């Protein structure tokens, strides 16, 4: 008998317009000591299943039908106190963001001990001993000291370890981990996943691992369940499902994942997800306004960065010598050639986004020079000149949900840079905006809508259209797809590639995602702690990394190339 059995679980969210079925008759089971992966795109209902098991659904969600059995005991339909006793003691939870799942005002000791006392009913002294034991087990150094500290004194990875320790503290039989590593860096992700894997084997705890990351699924899970729009489309041994997917959705989902191992020209698309409007008027860029970029120097290097330095004050003091500074970029120099895609890779805090912000003029460097299209951008007295070249340098931001003004119509958002820089006659602007919307695959009709009416992928298209509106030569893409689902990511990356070919754009591509970088970039620079460690042709870097840190990153990168190798060899999606 399995540890957890779910039969025909149906979860509904009633709203004004009727009832939305978030999870539709899902049946699955988890064995002790096993990790079951739950994979799907956002909105597929994978987190909802986890929350539904312990009745932590946000209102007005409710379990409409189905039976959940834990260790032979039916736990669906339990109310109030009875379900509370299941939480923590029988089923432990790990949430996505370790920065927010711990209460900032209480020490780790306080938060752990209360859980242990609550679940196991032991004395304070014993609970404290157990806490220290658990913290040791999850790999927190000096647990006796660290337990007295507050959450903000821990790094993201360390906090997630604490969260795992708390999830284990009630000695649960099952752990539900909801995107436990999505908010973490690659190297930390690897450690956390290993930890979860070891704990499951050692303690014979079952685990449901909810994630959208196919690499994670391939690396740690024993079995995997694929969800699509609330329905379970496929379940089985991980290597079977990934290596030989039966359902068309699974097949297309897997093919959309950027491969770390080899470079492809275009990403195969997942057609089942978000169809692009067909029959849109495509524009001929040789004659269209968009292609008629104003004259520019035909230099080899479009962007030259030299000895760029920026430090942030981390500790203020009255005397200068007592102040502490963090070197965000440390003598960074590189250049980007006309028409190439240049990748900047690093973990959070490596300074990659800071460089983008300095190039875009959102931040002033302490020293150094940035020459774009033959014009010095830093401390250049000729402000007009700087403004006119900056206009040909645009940025696409990471989060499409916060980078569009929610009170403006799409067509006004896109028209704004054109009008500001006087790039076209006022009566032409409307037509140009429409063409741009057609070109990025949204259709000119969508211009009258507001940002909230679009999905994440569509919003990123709007951002791209806005960036194109000044006819840029250089596009800075700061993690343009990291907030998006894998299928949507494939679409956006394809769009960027197409635009680059058509318009001869130069791209500075910033990402922490190595497979994406491999697909997108000609040359790559690896950054760490504000320094560039290695700069190489992409293929050389992936095949023959020189720096030790680069090798480490490549090793840690979750990959499922090996598992899906057969699939890619056999089928052409």
């Amino acid at each position, binding site marked *: 008998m399995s540890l957890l059995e779910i039969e025909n679980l149906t979860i509904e969210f009633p709203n004004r317009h009727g009832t939305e079925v978030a999870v539709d008759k899902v049946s699955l089971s988890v064995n002790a000591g096993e990790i079951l992966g739950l994979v799907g795109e956002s909105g597929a209902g994978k987190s909802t299943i986890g929350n539904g098991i312990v009745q932590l659904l946000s209102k007005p969600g409710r379990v409409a039908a189905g039976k959940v059995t834990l260790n032979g005991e039916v736990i669906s339909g339990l109310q109030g106190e009875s379900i509370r006793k299941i939480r923590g003691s029988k089923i432990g939870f790990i949430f996505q963001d370790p920065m927010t799942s711990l*209460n900032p*005002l209480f020490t780790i000791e306080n938060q752990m001990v209360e859980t242990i006392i*609550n679940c196991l009913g032991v004395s304070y002294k014993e609970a404290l001993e157990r806490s220290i034991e658990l913290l040791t087990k999850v790999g927190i150094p000096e647990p006796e000291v660290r337990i007295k500290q507050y959450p903000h004194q821990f790094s993201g990875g360390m906090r997630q370890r604490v969260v795992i320790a708390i999830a284990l503290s009630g000695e649960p039989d099952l752990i539900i981990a909801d995107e436990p590593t999505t908010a973490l860096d690659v190297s930390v992700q690897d450690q956390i996943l290993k930890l979860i894997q070891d704990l499951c084997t050692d303690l014979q705890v079952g685990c449901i691992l909810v994630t959208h990351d196919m690499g994670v699924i391939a690396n740690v899970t024993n079995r995997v369940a694929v969800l699509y729009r609330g329905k379970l489309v496929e379940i089985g041994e991980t290597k079977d499902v990934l290596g030989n997917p039966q359902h068309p959705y699974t097949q297309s989902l897997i093919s959309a994942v950027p491969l770390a191992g080899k470079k492809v020209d275009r990403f195969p698309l997942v057609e089942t997800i978000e169809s692009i409007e067909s029959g849109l008027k495509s524009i001929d860029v040789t004659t269209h306004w968009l292609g008629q970029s104003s004259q520019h120097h035909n230099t080899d290097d479009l962007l030259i960065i030299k000895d760029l330095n920026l430090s942030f004050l981390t500790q203020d003091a009255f005397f200068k010598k007592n102040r502490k500074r963090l070197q965000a970029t440390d003598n960074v120099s590189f250049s980007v050639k006309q028409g190439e895609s240049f990748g900047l890779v690093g973990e959070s805090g490596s300074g990659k986004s800071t460089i983008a912000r300095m190039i875009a003029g959102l931040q002033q460097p302490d020293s150094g020079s940035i020459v774009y299209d033959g014009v010095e951008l830093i401390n250049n007295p000729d402000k007009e000149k700087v403004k006119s070249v900056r206009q040909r340098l645009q940025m696409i931001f990471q989060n499409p949900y916060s980078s569009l003004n929610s009170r403006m119509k799409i067509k006004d958002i896109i028209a704004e840079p054109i009008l500001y820089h006087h790039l076209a006659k006022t009566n032409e602007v409307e037509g140009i905006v429409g063409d741009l919307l057609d070109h990025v695959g949204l259709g000119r009709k969508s211009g009258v809508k507001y940002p909230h009416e679009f999905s994440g992928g569509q919003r990123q298209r709007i951002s791209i259209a806005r960036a194109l509106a000044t006819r840029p030569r250089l596009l800075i893409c700061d993690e343009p797809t990291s907030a998006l689902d894998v299928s949507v990511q494939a679409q956006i990356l394809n769009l960027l590639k197409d635009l680059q070919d058509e318009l001869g754009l130069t791209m500075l591509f910033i990402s922490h995602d190595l497979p994406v970088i491999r697909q997108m970039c000609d040359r790559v620079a690896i950054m760490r702690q504000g320094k560039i460690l290695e700069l190489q042709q992409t293929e050389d870097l992936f095949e023959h990394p020189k720096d030790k840190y680069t090798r480490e990153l490549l090793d840690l990168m979750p990959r499922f190339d090996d598992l899906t190798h057969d699939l890619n060899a056999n089928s052409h999606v």
Partner: protein
Amino acid sequence: MLQFLLKRFLQAIVVMLIISLLSFSIKDKLGDPLREMTGQSVSEAEREVMRDEMGLNDPFLVQYGRFIKDALHGDLGTSYFHKLPTMTVILKKLPATLELTFAASLIIIFLSIPLGVFSAIKPKHWFSKFIMAVSIVGISIPVFLTALALIYIFSVKLGWMPSFGRGETVHLFGYWETNFLTKDGILHIIMPAIALSSIMLPLFIRLVRAEMLEVLSSEYVKFAKAKGLKAGKIYFKHALKNTMLPVITVGGVQIGIMVAYTILTESVFQWPGMGFMFLEAVNRSDIPLIVAYIMFVGFLFVVVNTLVDLLYGVINPTVNLLGKSK
């Protein structure tokens, strides 16, 4: 810590200088103090001599400089009416006002937190809806009207409560007169305190409710639920402490404002405090007393806000009073 206090002290000096300049510069606009001080029999020539003696004919900056110099020695001038140093007059009235503010704060704290928390936990309960409706009405009614209504109902019609004054008080340490030690004193302070709290109470109930609702939707509350904690512990340990952070910040500012509101309450209830004194001083063009009052209230603001910031730092471990990295 010491550095924080030092920084605060420097800021306070700047704030006090600005307040002093503002309050001192209005003094010329408040009418002729001589008219109040002297009778009809004093001739214009004699008045001119008095003006000279009092320094009222000197240029503004000279007068201001003299004022600052004296203020640094703790002398904020002499009240024209009381013929006493203004600080003496203010300090004498201070306990009455502070006790009134304290009583009103107690009412606010002990009502707003439970009511706000309740209406956040059970937003659909009829009582929550009732609280919200009443609080809207409460915000809209001016303090003096509440005060008059209280007097009309409980003193005039029912005769349960005294309508004016402090009643029987007890001397503490020879200086401080307190209402809290006699039954009569407590009876006297109840209605003024209710009137004074009436404007802030609805605001705080709504603030506590809004903050609590936000905290309840946070990840760590969800995590606390997932840990299997009891509802009481989630609400009153995990959620309430986080709720209090913004409430404390707002509270600090509002206590200062409440001291200013005592002008209305004290004059309706004939409460012998600073507010009542200030109103009398305005009527009598007692300029030194007016200026001293404004300075003193400004000083009170600075002190209260510093205390609130210290308290905030104690409650919230992520706040570092010096902006130091950990």
